[in-house]
């Protein structure tokens, strides 16, 4: 019995030592990998940043209007954004590789699942985020345009646009996550159809004036002739 206990203890001790002996190098390797990963990520970020500056990506993005969106979302410049993302992706990759070296069963499984799902979550969030920005932006643009054109119900248009874009963004995000695909599509169709109908009715009742003037403009009876403003310049 004593022997058994001693043997058990010895075995445990042996196992522990063995485990530690086995784990410690792995842990060190993991740490090394993570550190190397950090270094590599830094280097990659540095090179990428230099490359992007050289190709004047910021100017292109400014021209394309992308920078403006970034500014609105309080995000750094396109170059900065891209190089930072790549930095993190690279480093996280290294970290995960390092963790996998530890050989902890289950953890590896979880990590790989997370890994698989991670991009989708990321993309879904991005879609929602962009949708939010776009909805804000477009609805305000519509509001300003209709106010400045002297239309009667500018808020209606602005709210409709915001609503439609939200719906679109949400449904796309869900689609991306692959959640209850059919349900979402059905739900979206119903909401979208309803809102369109609502809009149509709203336009029909509230926007008669608007429609009339839009028609007039197309038919050549220019609104400008009736409404004379002094020329600004």
């Amino acid at each position, binding site marked *: 019995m004593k022997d058994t206990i001693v043997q058990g203890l010895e075995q445990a001790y042996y196992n522990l030592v063995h485990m530690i002996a086995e784990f410690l190098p792995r842990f060190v390797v993991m740490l090394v990998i993570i550190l190397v990963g950090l270094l590599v990520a830094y280097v990659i970020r540095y090179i990428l940043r230099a490359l992007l500056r050289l190709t*004047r990506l910021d100017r292109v993005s400014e021209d394309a209007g992308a920078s403006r969106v970034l*500014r609105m979302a309080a995000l750094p410049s396109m170059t900065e954004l891209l190089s930072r993302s790549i930095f993190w992706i690279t480093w996280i990759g290294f970290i995960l590789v390092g963790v996998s070296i530890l050989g902890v069963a289950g953890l590896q499984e979880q990590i790989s699942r997370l890994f698989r799902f991670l991009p989708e979550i990321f993309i879904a969030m991005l879609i929602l985020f962009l949708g939010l920005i776009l909805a804000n932006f477009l609805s305000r643009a519509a*509001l300003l345009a209709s106010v*400045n054109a002297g239309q009667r119900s500018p808020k209606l248009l602005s709210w409709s646009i915001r609503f439609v874009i939200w719906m679109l963004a949400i449904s796309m995000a869900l689609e991306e996550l692959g959640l209850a695909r059919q349900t979402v599509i059905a739900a979206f169709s119903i909401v979208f159809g309803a809102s369109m109908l609502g809009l149509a009715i709203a336009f029909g009742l509230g926007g008669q004036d608007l429609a009339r003037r839009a028609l007039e403009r197309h038919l050549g009876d220019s609104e400008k002739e009736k*409404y*004379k403003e002094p020329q600004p310049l």
Partner: protein
Amino acid sequence: MADETYLSDDLLRQLMSVGEVDLLVGILSHSSANTMRAAARSIENSLQQNFVRQRVAIISVDGGAVEDAASEDSVDPQTEGIAFSKGITSLRTIHRITAGFNSAPSAGLALRTILASSDLLRAKACAVVSPATSSTSPDWIANLLRPAFRDSFDFVAPMYSRHKFQGLLARNLLYPMTRALFGRRIRELYSDEWGFSNRLGAYCLTQDVWHEEPIRTRPEAWMGISAMTGPDFRCCQVFLGEKPQPPAGSGPDIVEALRQTVGSLFWCLETHQSVWLGRNGSEPVATIGPDHAVSAEPMDLDRARMFEMFQSGVKQLEPILHTILSSETHTNIQTVATLDQQTFRFGTDLWVKILYDFASAYHHSVINRDHLVQALVPLYRGKIYSFLMEHSDSSPGDMEAEGENLCLEFERQKPYLIEKWKAGVEVKS
């Protein structure tokens, strides 16, 4: 990388042939080849008579319709050998250069092409004109060129005689604000024609701004502001006669005009802040010819609708204005907007505060900058309505005095802007 290639091989070849010139006239146009040709001809006549000894070239920057123009030019590459008269006419070949683009170039690109050409041709003075105004008076082009060519001015702004209800944007906003901030009294910065020296041209050409949106759409005021703020540039104004009005509906409408001009002015505030933040008051610039004049024939305007649009704008845009304006200003404008048509007056103090709030909001990017400028439109309409009401019977003299008051108000309140400009973004509930 696109920087080095905006001058086409064909243009470079033409510039090489022209060699060095004394004067260059650039025509900016998005119109048809026909008006372009007519403009070039009228400008050429004027140059023939006014600069008989100087080496002169005319460059038209155009897109689309170029092939037409080019084909005519190839028949008659220069004006040599045709109609010989014993009257006053230039001794030299007057060159016509066509800078063709596949599609209509932006105003900024067109101006940049002219500046680059002027630099390569080593022109001592250059004028930029638009075809619409080319027929004004025979000597106007010479008047624009001469100060820069002969009297070593660097920037020559035009001045016109105008109807008293024309050019209201310049009178109520652009001129007083530019004057107060940059400290030089130049009336017309947003005109279709102006002149400049090779020094100013070269200076502007080297600025790294040509990809910016305000420069692409409306570079002219930026050039004038560069002259006011750059190193030792001399500015002057020259009287060109009556400002021809483009036919109704052809020019930009109020929204577009504000987006372009005010947008570009705000943008210039941003880029030239190191200069204007330190300037106080304003000084007059040399004026050549008679001072500007105002005529007063009756005009058919829909005032009631203007007021209505002001009122509804203040109401509908409430959340937007809230983020832009200071609380006090916002409350004031809301109060004023509730008055009825007869009693409503837009005070200069309020107007100046609004503009300074807008400028600083632009600086801090509280909302999209283009949207910000658009939000100004209803308020501008209100101001114009008030202006028309106050001045329906005013004499030009009264209006002049009133205009001067507005300018002084802008100058007086400049510290308010500076304070807001330097402070961080105001956080609003």
